[in-house]
Structures are given as structure tokens and as C-alpha cells.
């Protein structure tokens, strides 16, 4: 399902507006987890790398395979590492408990 370029621009513009509105509301308290989470989400580029590495190419197949494979490794490490550390950080944020003297 291909997009024309104008549709792509509309999608980009709307996503950027949503991004601004949603992220503006994130408390400065959580700016570090915000950065690691967006980083993990950004690693969705892995879908492009998977298709590049797996598809049949009439020419340049070796190049596509090598670059695609390295790209998958890089993106996957961001996905795994990014979600892990974001969750680790967020688990540490606790409100004052009722048990505090």
C-alpha cells in the first residue's frame, strides 16, 4: 500500500502536531525516561531494516543483506535496551508512602 508524497507530508505534519501536544504535557520530572522511551519507539526503523535484509533484490543483494542485518542489530539493541531502562527508571519513581514517619 503505497502513499503518495503529499499524503506522507500530511501524515508527518499531523504526527508532529500530536507529538508537540502530547510531549508538552510530560512533566520535567520524567524527561530522562521520555528520551529513552522515544528512542526505543524510534527504533521502529527496524521494520525498514527487516524488509531490506529479507526481500529479494535482483542486484545489490549482498549489500542490502549486510547493511540490513547490521541495521537490524543496531535498532533491536535500541528497542530492547530502551524499553528495559525506561521501565527500570519509572519503577524508581515513587510517591511519598503513607508509611513515612
Amino acid at each position: 500500500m503505497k502513499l503518495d508524497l503529499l499524503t506522507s507530508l500530511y501524515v508527518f505534519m499531523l504526527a508532529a502536531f500530536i507529538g508537540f501536544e502530547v510531549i508538552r504535557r510530560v512533566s520535567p520530572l520524567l524527561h530522562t525516561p521520555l528520551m529513552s522511551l522515544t528512542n526505543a519507539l524510534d527504533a521502529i526503523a527496524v521494520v525498514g531494516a527487516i524488509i531490506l535484509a529479507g526481500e529479494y533484490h535482483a542486484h545489490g543483494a549482498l549489500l542490502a543483506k549486510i547493511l540490513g542485518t547490521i541495521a537490524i542489530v543496531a535498532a533491536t539493541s535500541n528497542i530492547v535496551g530502551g524499553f528495559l531502562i525506561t521501565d527500570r527508571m519509572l519503577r524508581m519513581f515513587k510517591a511519598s508512602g503513607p508509611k513515612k514517619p
Partner: protein
Amino acid sequence: MINVPATEYVIEVTYLIATALFILSLKWLSSPATARRGVFAGEIGMLLAVVGTLLHHGIVEYKWIFIALVLGSIIGVPLGEVAMTAVPQRTALSHAFGALCVTLVGTAEFYLRAPDVPPFMMGVLSMEVILGSLTFTGSLMAAGKLQEILPQRPITYKGQNFVNLGLLGVAIVIAGALVAHPGRIQLFPVIVGIPLVFGVMMIIPIGGADMPTVISLLNSYAGLSAAAMGFVLQSKLLIIAGALDGASGFILSVNMSKAMNRSFSNVLFGAFGQEQHAAAATQQARSVRSATPEEAAAILAAANKVVIVPGYGMAVAQAQHKVRELYDALTKRGVDVKFGIHPVAGRMPGHMNVLLAEADIPYDKLCDMEEINGDFPQTDVALVIGANDVTNPAARTDHSSPIFGMPILDVDKARTVMVIKRSMAAGFAGIENPLYYLDKTLMLFGDAKNFVGSIVRELGGHHE
């Protein structure tokens, strides 16, 4: 849409759900109460998108894909387990990995498609690889500086900005030539190579205190390059994820540069620290009052309201757990303790919050600059630990100060100010801090961790 296999619709639906989950993920991050749900939503979205992609009918070989997915996961786990003090360099490194992925895919796409690349496509492809490769080396440099593998002092030379902008200009001109004549395949390595060099040159003049802005900018570039990749591959999912990441990085960069009262271009091309060395440190030796841990403990114990202002020095000294003990000791005595956190304290946005949360300090005690500044006039003691320029009252009053206009934490409005500092050496950029010479200020000389530890011992007696 004729002859589209049914699995293609399934894949599109997984992408659609993944997109919605990504947006929800960021929405839920707005509050600590729902934030973990946000991570979960992101994980499910990612899993759906990856599984959906693997169903893609065009994929003929899975072996290397699976090897790469496993290898990436193996590398990812330790990157998710780093110490909280190492989070800034880890973040910079992950920007580099993201940018590497985008650059490699862009490069392969060019060679697969050339010479039949329509002009608009060539334009976004150029943007993808230029942003991707400069973010790759720039982030590696930033990570190296943060990890202290590379020298942290800014390195500047005459004509640096001219060289850097010239390099970028050449890359853009060559990209333009490729847009006009995509058949000139031999030009392509240049628009990857020059930005790789530019990324290094861009970070060379950046000092440690500018890192929060620079990391945010690199975050934004990484997002934009991924969005450009989405245009090339015509993937809505990728365009949206890239736009969200780009917007996030952009907002953080704007916040950081506002908090330093500087423009982006000033951070990137200003080399802030350099010119002030001559002006500073010529001050005559003025007298300061210093105090021992016993005296500091007595003053803190007598206070009703204490605000602790942490800075990067606290992270360097690894003092956050001692600070938690101090927080506990004072809270036990009925003292109201809060933390005032400047947006650029530390080496990345939110750095101090993460360190203090790790030390088990409740997040409702961590206040940002706007929240806490109104409290200082009613505060008995403001305790500054390893922060300097963000407390400098010259930023409010002294028009000649290089940091004039920068929003600061008004610690000088508290009744007593205590500053834990190794020595009287000036901070970043060698700017004199008049706070230290006020009558109400007590200097506590020593290592932050040891000094706070001594105060805690004085406060706690020996019954614990």
C-alpha cells in the same frame, strides 16, 4: 488496490494499532502514575509491528533477520542495565545506534534504486543519510565525552564555525546535485562521508554543561532522520514514530536552551566557555564564611524548611544515596525537605530526578524551577550540592555577566545558604559566583558524599 494479498491488510492493521499504541505510550508518560503503562503500550506496539513486518510476503530469507534480532537483543540487555549515573552516555549511544540503522538503510536504498530516483525521493533520501550520519558520529562523540573517554573541555580553534558550516554546506550542495542527476552514483559516498566528519567537528567545541541541549538536539535529529526514512520507504508508521521522536527532541532542546538563556546556534556555534577565562578569576580574594559538618548539622536541625539544590557535582561524587540519608534524618526530625531542580542540572534533561528517584526520594519532593522559586523566601536553609551556575544571582542582576538573563534557582532568597563545594575554584566557564560571598552563605568545603555523610552522622547520633 487490486490483487493485494490478505496478509498485507493484516500487516497494515498491526501498523495502525502500533501507531495508536505509540501515541498512547507517550500520552501515558505524562504522569508518573501511568508512565509504566506507557512503556507497556510501547512494547506491545513494537512487538505487533515487528511480527507484522515478518509476515511481509516479500521476505524471502529469514535466517539473517533472526540472527540480527537475537544479536541486537543480546547487545540491548546490558544497555538497559547500565547504572543510572551512566544514563546520559547510554542515551547518546542509543541515538548513535538509531542513526546508524537509518543511515545504513538509506545507503542501501539508494544503491538499490539508483539511477531511477525521482527528485523528491532523492531529496528525502539525502536528508535521511545526512541527518543520520551526522547524528551517528555526533552522538558517538557525545557519548565519548560523557564517558570521559574523550576530553570534556571544549576544543576550539580559529575559523571553526566557518569550517563546520562550510562542510555542511558542501554536503547540501552535493545532495542538490544528486537530486538533479541521481545517476551520478559516485557522488553518494560524499553525502554520507562529509556529515560523518561534520558530526565529529560539531561536538568538538561542546563542553560538558552544554550536553543537555546537545543530547536533545541529537535526539531530534535522530527522529527526523527516521521520519525521512519513512518518506523513502513510504511507511506511515515510521513517519509518525520519527515525527514523535523529532518533536520530543525539539521540545527538550527548546526547554534546555531557554533554561540557559541561549539559542541553539549559540550552543552549537558559541563555544561559551572560551572567552570568559580572561574576565573571570581576576577578582580580588574576597572572604567567605565556612562551616564544619557539626555546625551545618545544627543549623539544618533547627530549620523548619530546607530546600536541597543538587547539580552535576552530586552525580560525580555519587552522593545521592547520602543525600537520601540526610533527607530521612531531617524528615524524621519534622523538617520539611524539598529538592529544587534546575532544568539543565546534570548532563541530560531530567538527569537529577532519575538519580534522586533511584535513591528512593519520593518524586513529589522533587520540584522544578518554577514550582520551587516561590518557596525560597520562606525557606530556612537552601543546601546547594554540586551546583554552581544555576544558583548564580549575577544572572538576575549583573548585565555584564556571561550568564545574565539565565533563569536561576533563587537560593539567595533563603534565610541561610549552604554550599557544598570542593574548593573556591570557579565553575563551568569560570564565572564568578557572588552567592558565595553573601553574609548569609556558609561554604562547606569537601567532597559532597563525605560531607553529607558527616552531617548525617551528626544529625543521627549513634542509635542507628
